[in-house]
């Protein structure tokens, strides 16, 4: 009775999993499954943003101050890195679809590289925050961490080991943030902002890492010729859905965390140069 899909020479598209009747059903199911998973991801990050917004409403000034202490330069560059990776992963689908194995592998590798660079910059950003002593709460620094802070102290004698509020004032002053601590913003409230900063970016980084793992796995599969069956482009597409979603999350993280405070373009450039070691290093 399944006359209409009898016309489809499915064998040329690769085998259908045992529990599906035809390739179309398999594709539809796989797509649906991924979208359902993405819905849970929407709720996941949505919940974090709900919490963020609640406090943003309560303490707007403090959150702006916190944002002013972040490195907008790295964030801006990372934005474009993710966008380009979204492009490459989309091109990868096309390659798989037209059966271009070389192109597929090239694009997947490009995506992986871009993602890795993103993570590298992110790590550098965390390390800078760490050196500036912007660790909320009463976490005891490790020995080498303390040494880091001391080394940073050589440039900036005002940095205090493991005292968030003091270090924050120093950093904000260096970033040229006009605002009197205690009057315009309350450093301990800024700790709240930093909890969200580490929490949300941390979750995003976790998703990036998982994505990179899946990408490298598909690179191996592609090299083994797994995607030579044209129908299997669906798996590249499914992964790309996930990757695009991670990109999408970053699109909202950027304005919510990094751009909500007063930043200038020149400052961002300065911060980025500093991050990659070209900066004058003044104040750090």
């Amino acid at each position, binding site marked *: 009775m399944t006359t209409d899909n009898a016309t489809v020479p499915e064998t040329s598209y690769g085998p259908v999993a045992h529990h599906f009747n035809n390739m179309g059903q398999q594709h539809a199911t796989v797509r649906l499954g991924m979208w359902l998973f993405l819905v849970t991801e929407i709720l996941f990050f949505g919940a974090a943003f709900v919490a963020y917004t609640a406090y943003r409403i309560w303490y707007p000034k403090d959150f702006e101050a916190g944002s002013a202490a972040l490195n907008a330069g790295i964030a801006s560059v990372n934005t474009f890195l993710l966008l380009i990776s*979204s492009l490459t992963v989309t091109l990868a689908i096309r390659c798989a679809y037209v059966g271009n194995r070389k192109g597929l592998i090239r694009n997947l590798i490009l995506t992986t590289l871009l993602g890795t660079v993103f993570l590298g910059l992110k790590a550098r950003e965390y390390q800078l925050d760490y050196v500036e002593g912007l660790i909320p709460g009463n976490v005891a620094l490790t020995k080498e961490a303390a040494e880091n802070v001391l080394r940073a102290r050589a440039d900036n004698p005002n940095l205090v080991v493991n005292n968030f509020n003091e270090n924050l004032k120093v950093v904000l002053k260096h970033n040229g943030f006009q605002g009197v601590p205690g009057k315009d913003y309350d450093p301990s409230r800024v700790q709240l902002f930093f909890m969200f900063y580490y929490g949300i970016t941390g979750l995003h980084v976790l998703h990036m890492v998982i994505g990179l793992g899946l990408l490298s796995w598909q690179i191996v599969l592609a090299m083994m010729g797994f995607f030579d069956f044209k129908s299997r482009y669906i798996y590249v597409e499914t992964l790309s859905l996930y990757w695009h979603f991670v*990109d999408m999350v970053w699109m909202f993280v950027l304005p919510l965390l990094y751009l909500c405070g007063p930043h200038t373009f020149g400052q961002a450039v300065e911060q980025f140069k500093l991050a990659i070691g070209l900066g004058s290093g003044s104040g750090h």
Partner: protein
Amino acid sequence: MTTPTNSSERHADEFLSHTVPPTSTTLTVFAALVGLAMLALLIGFSELGPIKVLASLGCATVQACVLGYFFMELKQADKLTWLVVASGFFFTGIQFVFTLTDYLTRHLGVL
């Protein structure tokens, strides 16, 4: 004669009907995305005051929509996929509305 409600037949032709757009389209969309990203940064680095947040968030929303519609293939997705996505945002919205209502109205009518 087939029963239209047979999942397998309903999707039998999906594999054929579902196409992957050519590279040219992809590049156009990418250009648009980059433009939007630059706009977002421009807003972020400007001195708009309180509107800044809304503006940059609006920009991000447009960006996300473009990304979803073209790169994530919502363009050729069926109703079900749209429903799934919509429900995700709807229930996040529910959480936003009720939780934030608490924070905005808690001071009212307190003993």
